[in-house]
């Protein structure tokens, strides 16, 4: 293929994905319509994730006023926020709950978009940016987990980082040293310490937010440019206006989500779901306490990791990454019924591993 031709094709491809002629208010808001069918609830999950993200930004900025990212002060400052700052416990608790709810709604959004084949042409890039957002969201969870610097946080982070190094054993030749080097770069020193805390803080507070805002902007823009995907195989019988009918419903969902979040944040400390010694400050001289495990949203990978050989997980991970990024092209010709079955299966797997993961683990390990 001639370079000119390649250039033109690339131009055509991008022009179809980002139709500049639709870049106006009338097309993006005024005339936009949303199909009404039995899967319509899926259209609200992305907005819900956006809402929780906004809550995270606000509460995160508030916490930033008091948090101190040093090994000696991190835990003390978190304690100070929860016990002394007026409404500090509420803000921190909402931050914790909203992070979990955000990840839950992102996962739900992913599965429902998959089931509705929302990645079909011309929405491939929307899907890919969504997959990136998923990765960034998990990275938020992983980095944020370390910041309170308590036993469970530091030990779980150690294990998580060590897993990266493990990959080296499966790489050939010189490449086998790369994962260890990557881990060192993330960790910043020989063990998880002040350098790691500083780096995770920078990632959690500056780098990841900048990244997510950029990708999220592209994602939202392309959603509004292309409108909602049809979602079902038959042409939907009814459409509703995006503005104001759909927007109103979307905002009402936000209102309900806000109330749930507020009541949870006020009444149920996120920490009460864990055992308290794990929330003591990290003690580098003691043994790793029992009951170390990552946050619930890593269970789907954590428990298989415990049960199966590492290379199986590694291969599965790699495959998952490829499938996730390549979905628009891999499933181009699959019909929606098959996609729905796949999505339900994946959802069931996530649910079972999250809820019963520990039971399954004990069943096999005794």
């Amino acid at each position, binding site marked *: 293929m001639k370079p000119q031709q390649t250039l033109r094709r690339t131009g055509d491809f991008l022009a179809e994905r980002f139709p500049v002629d639709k870049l106006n208010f009338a097309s993006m808001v005024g005339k936009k319509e949303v199909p009404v069918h039995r899967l319509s609830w899926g259209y609200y999950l992305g907005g819900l994730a956006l809402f929780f993200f906004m809550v995270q930004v606000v509460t995160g900025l508030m916490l930033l006023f008091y948090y101190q990212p040093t090994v000696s002060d991190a835990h003390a400052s978190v304690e100070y926020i*929860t016990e002394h700052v007026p409404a500090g416990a509420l803000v921190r608790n909402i931050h914790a709950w909203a992070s979990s709810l955000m990840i839950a709604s992102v996962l739900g959004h992913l599965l429902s978009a998959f089931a509705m084949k929302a990645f079909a042409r011309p929405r491939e890039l929307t899907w890919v940016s969504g997959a990136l957002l998923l990765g960034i969201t998990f990275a938020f969870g992983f980095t944020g987990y370390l910041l309170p610097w308590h036993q469970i946080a530091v030990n779980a982070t150690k294990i998580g980082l060590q897993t990266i190094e493990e990959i080296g054993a499966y790489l050939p030749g010189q490449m086998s040293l790369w994962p260890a080097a990557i881990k060192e770069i993330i960790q910043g020193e020989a063990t998880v310490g002040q350098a790691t805390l500083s780096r995770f803080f920078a990632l959690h507070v500056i780098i990841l937010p900048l990244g997510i805002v950029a990708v999220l902007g592209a994602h939202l823009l392309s959603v509004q440019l292309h409108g909602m995907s049809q979602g079902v195989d038959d042409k939907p019988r009814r459409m509703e206006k995006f503005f104001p009918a759909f927007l*109103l419903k979307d905002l009402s969902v936000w209102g309900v989500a806000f109330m749930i979040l507020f*009541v949870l944040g006020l009444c149920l400390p996120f920490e*009460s*779901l864990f*055992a308290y010694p794990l929330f*003591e400050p990290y*003690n580098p*001289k*003691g043994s790793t306490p029992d009951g170390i495990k990552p946050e619930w949203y890593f269970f789907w990978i954590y428990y298989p990791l415990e049960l199966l050989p590492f290379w199986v997980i590694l291969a599965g991970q790699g495959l998952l990454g490829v499938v996730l990024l390549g979905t628009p092209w891999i499933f181009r010709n699959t019909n929606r019924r098959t996609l729905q079955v796949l999505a339900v299966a994946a959802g069931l797997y996530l649910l079972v591993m999250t809820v019963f993961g520990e039971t399954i683990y004990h069943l096999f390990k005794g």
Partner: protein
Amino acid sequence: MRAFFIPFRWTRLALACALALGAASPLQAYPEFQQSVVKTSRRAVNCALCHSHPDGPEGAAPGQIGRLTAAEQAELVRARAAFEPNAKPNSPILNAFGNHIVQSLGKRRFLELRLAPEQLAAALPKDSDLDGDGIADAEEYRAGTHPLLRSDGAPWLLFRANLQRNLPQILVVLAATLLGFYGLRHLLRGFAATAPNEEEEDLAAP
């Protein structure tokens, strides 16, 4: 000079480390109670339930016997001799809950309970709630949650207690949310109502 300094530090540290794993020597601490709580609640409870330091009283870390000032030593001696209830002990190696136990039971009754550690919860006063989280200390002790941590407790009990306490606030916020959405809804409708009007005029023009 250095040769002297290092051994000194190291005995201290090593002692602390040895104690870190629950092998607290039974000289002054009472691991029966910890073991009983761990058994009934199935939670990893450590010495910080009643002591100042999570590794118990022995050692040289802050809150342990090896690092007490003279005044604190005197308090410790006084607390150890508090055989009857209501002696207002203020032992530096105990936290507020530990002192609360000695205060309400007295050291004598407490030592008797070592033979039946599971009865300690029943012996504690029912109405005391040191962290004010809505769950009584005795209840928290039985459940293996921390009586001095406001954010620790059986989730459902905690939720119920907090819900009752914060109900007015929740209702106000609920009312505000409802009102706000009512307002937002009508504002959007107002905008939408003006929009088609322009369209009709456009159509009518030619």
